[in-house]
């Protein structure tokens, strides 16, 4: 499904004296369809940089990211828009992922409007369907993000992503801002959705216990290089 080949990334810093900070050094790995892969590493090691390169939010200095057989850097504007539907990302802080000036309903409709998908009636029925999928009530739809809890906001972010029917989701520290009970609920929900919708996940986390519980294969990013930590058969749902 996703193949990363020899990716390099260096950041430049300093105004007067330019310095180069290599972040990713010859990164290559592959993620087959329908499994969960973990990416661990200390704060600032480049995990999120790699995630942004995978999703096309950041360009690598060199190397290729191949998704469903196509190099994402070679996609045209329309193809890139379609690609973005298939690959989605969940960020660490759910509150800052939602527009505070929009209601939950408006937040959830926005990706479908941008992608010009479905009629208005269909869009609303998809929102109702997806909000039920993540176990929330439709009476949240007219509230604003500040009026819901962190766990509810993260489930709204997930429901919003699901409106686009993605096949690959990058989970960038999706539970680190949530308490432990909500963390277990969200990870369990993600596992159920994976089984139902055949989703592929890349879970980025600094919590080894969470990564080991959630994923079948783990990589460690250290000093810019990737180390394969573990490869096991599917562990099954809790």
């Amino acid at each position: 499904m996703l193949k990363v080949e020899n990716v390099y990334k260096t950041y430049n810093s300093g105004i007067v004296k330019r310095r180069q900070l290599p972040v990713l050094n010859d990164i290559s790995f592959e993620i087959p369809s329908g499994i969960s892969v973990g990416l661990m590493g200390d704060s600032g090691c480049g995990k999120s940089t790699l995630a942004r390169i995978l999703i096309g939010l950041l360009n690598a200095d060199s190397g290729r990211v191949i998704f469903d057989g196509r190099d994402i850097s070679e996609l045209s504007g329309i193809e890139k828009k379609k690609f973005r539907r298939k690959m989605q990302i969940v960020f660490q802080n759910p509150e800052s992922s939602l527009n505070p000036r929009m209601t939950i309903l408006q937040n959830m409709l926005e990706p479908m409007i941008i992608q010009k998908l479905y009629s208005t009636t269909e869009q609303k029925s998809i929102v109702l369907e997806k909000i039920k999928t993540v176990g929330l009530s439709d009476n949240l739809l007219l509230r604003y993000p500040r009026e819901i809890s962190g766990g509810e906001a993260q489930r709204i972010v997930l429901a919003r992503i699901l409106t686009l029917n993605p096949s690959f989701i990058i989970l960038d520290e999706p539970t680190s801002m949530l308490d432990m009970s909500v963390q277990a609920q969200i990870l369990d929900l993600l596992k159920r959705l994976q089984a139902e919708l055949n989703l592929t996940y890349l879970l980025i986390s600094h919590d080894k216990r969470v990564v080991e519980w959630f994923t079948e294969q783990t990589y460690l990013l250290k000093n810019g290089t990737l180390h394969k930590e573990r490869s096991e058969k599917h562990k099954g749902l809790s």
Partner: protein
Amino acid sequence: MGSDIIIKNLNIKFLRKDGDIHAVKDVSVEFKAGQVTGIVGESGSGKSVLGMSILQLLPENAEVSGKITYSGMNILLKNEKQMREIRGNKIALIPQSPSESLNPSMKIGNQVSEIFRHHKRQSRHEALKSSECILEEFHLLDVPRCMSSYGFQLSGGMKQRVVSSFGIAANPHWVIADEPTKGMDRVLETQITEVLGEISKRTNMLIITHNLMLAQELCDRIIVMHNGCIIEKGDSNIFKNPLHPYTEGLVKSMPENGMVPMPFAQQKQNNNSCGICSWCHDKSDICTMEKPPLFKVAGRLVRCFQYAQSGKRL
């Protein structure tokens, strides 16, 4: 080390156009001087609201009733001017997010010295000296450089140490630490636990957290809150042998215990129940009809009808 904080029949409601939220429901509790007390619970359980009510730092739409006694005075009757004398001097706060708590346009040295100038009436020079001393106590490397830096130039651990120094700068009797490890990685979490451990040796402390391990490690007494109520209260062994099904659920949802999820909270909860009836395995008919009182069982307080026979009703 100072006086106890005694809370009696505290009710806190947030008044809203689309229906009030009863965040803290008839809570009575004593925070004893000389002990570190931890309040744990999931988001929305009312733990932070309870902590902030002690400092009167609630939003304007909060309606507070009950009594919070400290040093023989009811804090809830104090006006803003009187509260300013209490905040920092008597009861201080270590806020939730160090990045958001630091002023991005002020150097660290000036921010710390502000506390000494305001609360201790020190001169600018004296205040800077005192700031240097207090930052050194928190084992910050290269204190002069840190004092002349801005918040965004420091690492997460350094920022938390600076914010923690705010808490004890004026030598308060009590420090309230609100979610001190939220969103931090394990390395940082360990550092912060050390810092909090140091603070707890010199002052009384109330730690509000969802991190059960942090509470277990640092606290002498632990209070578990759910849906605005205290549902279990005991010593630091509470998580080794939880009595309330909700506390048991919290323990099981920890990564080291297999992350067994509790069902998602219901949108509308019946006020005449304990709030977990929809999924509790030990529920009986009375659980859906009546809100359980606290029962005293084996040195603990538990709000669950399964202890109605073995426990003493309070």
